[in-house]
């Protein structure tokens, strides 16, 4: 495994322009405003953690960022270029650069681990199968699953499935990763292995936005914690500020509740 650590603070000073910029995203389902104008700037190497009660709109926001859910309003820029998601080609090119990790893995059930990781490179990037296969093996090795690459999703544990899905996303060389509660569907004893992979990604300078309730893990890694409630971003700040010195009463209330639920931080 290659461990080349990029000092996060340095990066932020060099890169004046955010790698991902989200402005004023709104989404309504029927009469319900699920997102009420969320904005976010993400710098290269950042790890933004989205926290907030269930139904706050975290998943919707993450899916609006790569347009799996079409926002009603709002704009997105990647590396300074606005994404025109109505243009299919623009959209598909953009999505290749934004990796997505789902709560319930969403591995392709009819493909084994290797094929799951390879298929994006072959079908989307048009890479030759052999070359894509080599890269897939590399990515699986990186998440510690080289020995399981012939197994099908139904033969893997939850933790292994999530690691395959991370390898699948990494194989596309994403600029940003979106992780939607990557460990929520896992048994407690399997959370660690997935966290280790995510920590490794962060140490290697991957830019990530992650929704999670695992605030112990979050506060040790996050460059910023973003607290969402009822479709709005209510407060944001360093882990220390949000968990120990939040301005908003709702933030404090949520943090104390979640600390109780998800243990020491």
């Amino acid at each position, binding site marked *: 495994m290659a461990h080349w650590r990029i000092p996060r603070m340095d990066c932020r000073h060099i890169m004046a322009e955010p790698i991902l910029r989200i402005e004023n995203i709104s989404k309504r389902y029927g009469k319900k405003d699920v997102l009420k104008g969320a904005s976010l700037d993400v710098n290269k190497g950042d790890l933004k953690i989205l926290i907030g009660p269930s139904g706050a709109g975290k998943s919707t926001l993450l899916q609006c960022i790569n347009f799996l859910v079409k926002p009603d309003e709002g704009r997105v820029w990647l590396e300074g270029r606005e994404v025109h998601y109505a243009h299919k080609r623009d959209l598909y090119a953009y999505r290749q650069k934004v990796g997505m990790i789902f709560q319930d893995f969403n*591995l392709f*059930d009819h493909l084994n681990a290797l094929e799951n990781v390879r298929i994006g490179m072959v079908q989307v990037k048009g890479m030759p199968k052999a070359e894509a296969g080599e890269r897939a093996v590399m990515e699986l090795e990186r998440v510690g699953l080289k020995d399981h690459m012939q197994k099908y999703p139904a033969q893997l544990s939850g933790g292994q499935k999530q690691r395959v899905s991370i390898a699948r996303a990494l194989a596309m060389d994403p600029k940003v990763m979106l992780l939607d509660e990557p460990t929520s569907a896992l048994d407690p004893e399997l959370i660690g292995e997935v966290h280790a992979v995510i920590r490794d990604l962060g140490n290697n300078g991957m830019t990530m936005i992650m929704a999670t309730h695992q605030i112990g893990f979050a506060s040790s890694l996050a460059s910023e914690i973003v607290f969402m409630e009822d479709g709005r971003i209510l407060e944001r700040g360093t882990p220390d500020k949000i968990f120990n010195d939040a301005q908003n009463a709702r933030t404090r209330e949520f943090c104390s509740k979640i600390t109780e639920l998800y243990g020491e931080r």
Partner: protein
Amino acid sequence: MGTRCGIVSPYSPILPLNNGKASAHEAFHFWGRCERMPESLIAIGDALPYLLRGSLVTLIVVVGAMALGLVLGVPLAMGQVYGHWALRRAIAVYVWFFRGIPLLVFLFLFYFGLCTALDINLSAFTVAIIVLGLISSAYQSQIFRGAILSLPEGQLKAARALGMSDIKAITVIILPQALRLSVPGWSNEYSILLKDSAVTYALGVAEIMARAHFVATRTYQQLPLYFAAGMIFLILTWMGTKSLRLLEEKVRIPGYGSSPQLAAESFDP
């Protein structure tokens, strides 16, 4: 040839298969007459090769109709799940139409009605395949539709998130899974088509039932001949569902159990 047991042979006018090489047949018959075998057995023995040739016709009609139904049913299902609302509506009407009218009516409508009116010269055999295929496409589209809808929504989301176009995601991710899930439905569809195909006898398709009827009315051995026809259908049903079960096993995704539906349907004597 000519007369046998004092009954006019039903085979001579339409059976080229007996021409010249009927010796085994004759021998059987001769033996049967000597031993005073029950006439019913003799009748079955006599008719069997003829009926079996009919089962080949039946199988071709059924397999042809299933293939046509598959080729039409897959896009119909796709359209119904992913299409524009107008397309979905149109497909729903198509399905409603082909599922709502009796097979016999369709056969006559197509063969005696449409073909005559439009002056199209199609054989009864071809019409049988087309009509059964169209009807089957309506049913098969619903099998696929169910299969597609039973896939977790996340499959399509994950494919899109990788940058796949919808067409690509559907053909590479959804279709292979939906087809696997459809195999038990096919098994059902096969046995229904097989039984339905007997109706094409009304157009004069020389399938099992037509042949059994033809011989029965001329030899007055109705009981044994229709019984034999029934047995042949039963065996064909068994063979078909058995093969589809093997197919299901072959394409089964490792880690998944086999479907209880197919296991319950197929009978292993």
